[in-house]
């Protein structure tokens, strides 16, 4: 049984159908890339997995480790191990990054019936990870994402992922808005988190990111469903030929 199973998922927002019978399996420890043109439903899939309430699931199911998560609130999903690295991380004025990380981690641990992490353990975990990602102590003291550059926001997402240690990480266009140096730092941070116990769904429009985060499988999304799956070489083929070949197929 795959760790994540998306079965015949139909999703609407404001009466418009975005996902149209999407079926997808991601194995435990697998890194799956989802590629597709604009408007194909990539970000919708990410939000639906995380539990954003504006999206209306009309048909199908999403199973995590065999359990349906569609009825769960976003915080309950997070405690089950779902993590979404946002394409556009929001600024949270007045909430210090450290406070935010600690509140989130302890809330998840509490939900799972685990003890809260001690302050020294927590500080060490954050400091070590932040160091790798080039996140300064000063940034950790600042309010979450407030005044951060685009690259800093993306690095902060990876920091959160490293601290929260999810079982399923969904990375929504983590490469967008990054220059090549920032992209390498972010990809390096993600690669450090690759583990046989962690599945990843890497959503991207461009093949570039996949040079740095090399996927095990590539799925092509068009018009709200998976239209082709293959190995990492599929990404290169898309880069060369574009998405036009699939636009017609799904119609």
């Amino acid at each position: 049984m795959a760790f994540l199973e998306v079965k015949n998922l139909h999703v609407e927002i404001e009466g418009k159908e975005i996902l149209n019978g999407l079926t997808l399996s991601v194995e435990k420890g697998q890194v799956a890339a989802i590629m597709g043109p604009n408007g194909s439903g990539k970000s919708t899939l990410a939000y639906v997995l995380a539990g954003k309430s504006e999206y209306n699931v009309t048909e199908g199911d999403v199973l995590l480790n065999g359990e349906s998560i569609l009825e769960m609130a976003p915080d309950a999903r997070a405690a089950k191990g779902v993590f979404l690295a946002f394409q556009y991380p929001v600024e949270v004025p007045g909430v210090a990054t450290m406070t935010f990380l600690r509140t989130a981690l302890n809330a998840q641990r509490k939900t799972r019936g685990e003890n809260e992490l001690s302050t020294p353990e927590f500080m060490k975990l954050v400091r070590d990870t932040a160091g790798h990602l080039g996140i300064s102590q000063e940034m950790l003291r600042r309010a979450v994402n407030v005044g951060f550059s685009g690259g800093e926001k993306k690095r902060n997402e990876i920091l959160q992922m490293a601290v929260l240690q999810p079982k399923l990480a969904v990375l929504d266009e983590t490469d967008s808005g990054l220059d090549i140096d920032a992209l390498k730092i972010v990809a390096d941070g993600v690669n450090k988190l690759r583990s046989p116990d962690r599945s990843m769904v890497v959503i991207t429009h461009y093949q570039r990111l996949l040079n740095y985060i090399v996927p095990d499988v590539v799925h092509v999304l068009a018009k709200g469903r998976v239209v082709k799956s293959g190995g990492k070489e599929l990404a290169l083929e898309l880069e060369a030929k574009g998405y036009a070949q699939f636009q017609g197929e799904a119609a």
Partner: protein
Amino acid sequence: MNAEVRAIRTPAEQALNAAYAAARAKLPGKGAIADLREAAFQRFDAAGLPHRRIEEWKYTDLRALMREAKPLAEPAKAKGKVPALPGLTAGRIVIVNGRYEQAWSEFKPVAGVELSDVFAFAADQKNYRLGEIPGRDDIAVSLNTAFMTGGVALRVAKGVNIEKPIEIAHVFADGTAAAMYPRSVVVVEPGARVTFIESFNGPAGVDYQVNSALELVIGEGAHVDHVTIGSDGDKALRISSLGVKVGAKAIYNGFTYTAGGAVVRNQIFARFDGEGTQASIGGVTLLKGRQHVDNTLVINHAAGGCTSRERFRTVLDGESHGIFQGKIVVEPHAQKTDAKMASHALLLSDEAEADNKPELEIFADDVQCGHGATAGALDSALKFYLMSRGIPENEAEALLIQAFVGEAIEEIVHEGIREALLNAAAKWLQAREQ
């Protein structure tokens, strides 16, 4: 024949008239003070209680909100205690039922600070002319002037730096409702620095009334941090007015925290008389149930080159009503004025109402002035972001409300007061969640 049209007096207005007639001869202060009272009462008598057709009182219709005028409070019978901010203050001056009570106070003499009874202080007209403050003609201020029963005068001597805050605590201490009219004066001489707290407390379940006024005079180059903490009982009606004159190159940081009371109006009338003043006037209001709190400011840039920031935040739950009215006036010669005002209301309930009324009246042509006002619910995108990290909904909401309030409280310079108010706000939130 007298053609003046005068609405029929409400029961509260009639009671105020009767109370003044009965108390006039007994109220403290002779000569100039008695004249001041009389003139102030005439202003009230001509206008009556302010109501919704009076622009400045549009949202706080006293005719409707103050159905009756309580009798004048008697002096406290027994010595009592006032809830304290532990370890924070150098001294506490306690004003009970509108009178300075030395026995309740804990105030050891501080070098450079002169404390006296307000009427003794003002008896010598050369010393200080009571009532010469911005906002003196406001009806609530006039009522205070007519009925003022006591208070203190604090004078901080030229150039001294008073490190620990001084608190002026107002308390209503009676089981039966009455009205109190405290009036105090704080004079900060040139170059001095002081932090002072005004607090308001009273019992729950008693519909007592407070009409307080504070005259604050800040000398050239002085630095004053002034925090007002309103923790009145749930049935109280309180109107507090501040008239502040700020001298050249002075710094004035005012902050008003209001969480208690049934109906509260905080009025600030400020005038910058000399160039180069820097003023920050802010506040946080936390409302639940059917509370009604109005923060009204009139900021007069009467001299050029002054900077002022007005920042207010209100959290509204239940069926509460929060009002912010801020008017910045820039006089013709007050060039290079830099004034920015912002009011933000966070609505936690569909039944709550927030009214923001920012106004700019600019008569100079080389100024930078602006205002902004918002009212809205918690941002659902922020809430989703927090929840997606595993933070449960109620905790995510509490964190966001606390952040909204905390950002404003962070403006307070004094660390101890800042911490005390952050804790008070956190307690308010915890009570809300239960």
